[in-house]
């Protein structure tokens, strides 16, 4: 079994890539961006305070515009929101499937920050919150 290194992001924040979200594991969403882009998505979320106590949400940007970062649990539907989870002080993340899992829907505090920062168009913010199909 491959050993996944823990990356120190800051003195008290570490990140680790979860291989089951890259190796085609059934019923797990899959990253389609590179490891370093996944890490950048996390560090951006950290910097912009999109992380709550043990969970957080992130976006992947290309040319300063949100872009798709993976596929949902069906391994087909493109998704553009990442969810990050803190497990014993080490964070890991996966592409969020907001249609299938309530816990993958960014809560109103996060969606409000995205709304105020205008990082996503308002219709997308509405569809994410309602678990509706949503593509960029």
């Amino acid at each position: 079994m491959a050993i996944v290194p823990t990356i120190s992001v800051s003195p008290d924040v570490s990140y680790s890539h979860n291989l089951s979200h890259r190796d085609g594991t059934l019923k797990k969403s899959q990253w389609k961006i590179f490891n370093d882009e996944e890490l950048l998505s996390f560090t951006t979320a950290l910097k912009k305070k999109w992380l709550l106590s043990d969970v957080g949400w992130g976006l992947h940007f290309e040319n300063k515009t949100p872009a798709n970062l993976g596929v949902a649990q069906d391994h087909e539907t493109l998704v553009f929101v990442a969810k990050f989870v803190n497990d014993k002080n080490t964070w890991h993340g996966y592409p969020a499937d907001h249609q299938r899992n309530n816990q993958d829907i960014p809560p109103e505090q996060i969606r409000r920050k995205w709304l105020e920062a205008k990082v996503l168009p308002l219709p997308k913010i509405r569809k994410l919150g309602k678990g509706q199909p949503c593509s960029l």
Partner: protein
Amino acid sequence: MQPVKLTIFGEYWDSQIYAGRLYLFGLSGDIITLDWDKLFEVFGIEEELILAASAAFQRSDLFYDSKRELFQDREIKQIILKKFDQLAERDLTIPNVESLNPKHQDNKFPFPHTDSQIYRKTLYVSSQSGVYSATCDKKTKNKHPVSTRTQKRWDAPVVAMSASYGCLALAVGDEGLFQMSLFDTAEIENLSNQNCIDCNWTYYSIYGSSHIRSGYLAEFEKENHFEDENRSYERRFRSLISEDTVFHGSGYSWGVHDKLCQARNGCVHIVRYKPWKKPDSELEYMGRLNLAQWKGQVISGKVASFGVIIECENAIVVLPSDDGDAITFPGEPVNWRIFPRSKHYENQLHIIYEDRIEIISFNHDYFVNQELKRAGIKVFQPN
């Protein structure tokens, strides 16, 4: 007949209209309340169009309640049609909502919320943190149009809701479909564990919609009780009827009142629901209507008296009740809403875009045979 449109510029998240007030949820975390009846004074609508304007925006029941013999007179019908057409050509735009002296108050509900509903003078708002309510009774002398005392009713992550029969139907995503009694016991009942992202009332039953799994009808039976000259009723859950049983195929489906709809392979199939005709003839297939491909995937759907409304990726489409051409509103809206339970505003479609709200009034349904129409819920017309 083309619809009549009123535009209010500004940045909004959601809208509600109830008892002469228009409520706008602003993007900066406020609720803006407008006196809806006074709003029309700013347009200086000429006297000969006041009747049409009243029917279009303030009293949708005006012509439904009229004697039908009047509308069978061809000359009278042509006069009324002409009035609506003339009104549709008027520019009804409010460039700045502040010119209407609205009332502003802080929005005490979670924001941005997932859905809202006004029922029996109470505003309900749903969000990931639960369902909240506050009274909005015009007759009380509150400083604020919406009471600042919000009450948390439930703590589940609700994505959509609909009120009727003293209950809130609640779509809770992967947790399924629930029903909350609003009076008496305030109990919450889980009707299905299957994914549900939207819910609407079909008479006294509830239709749950899903993109991930099949939609379904949570069918209830209603029993009337008569005791000491008092009439009451009891609703009892019977069973779940799958989308496949209704439509003999899978797609995205929804149902309101007497019409169940399913979008599948570029068409919208319509089934009439008559729960009083059991067991074999409660579902009657009424045909299908086409959806143009460029409009993209179907996101959600509703049914109003004036037609079937479908939100696609790239547009909102109205399939009108008079079987006329589809009316398309291009673009991806921030939000949209209809008011099928409303006595005075059931002909309105609200569409919120990034810089404005469009309040669109459809008035063709007054001239449609309510028994025979396919696209649109049947309006009860007293004899």
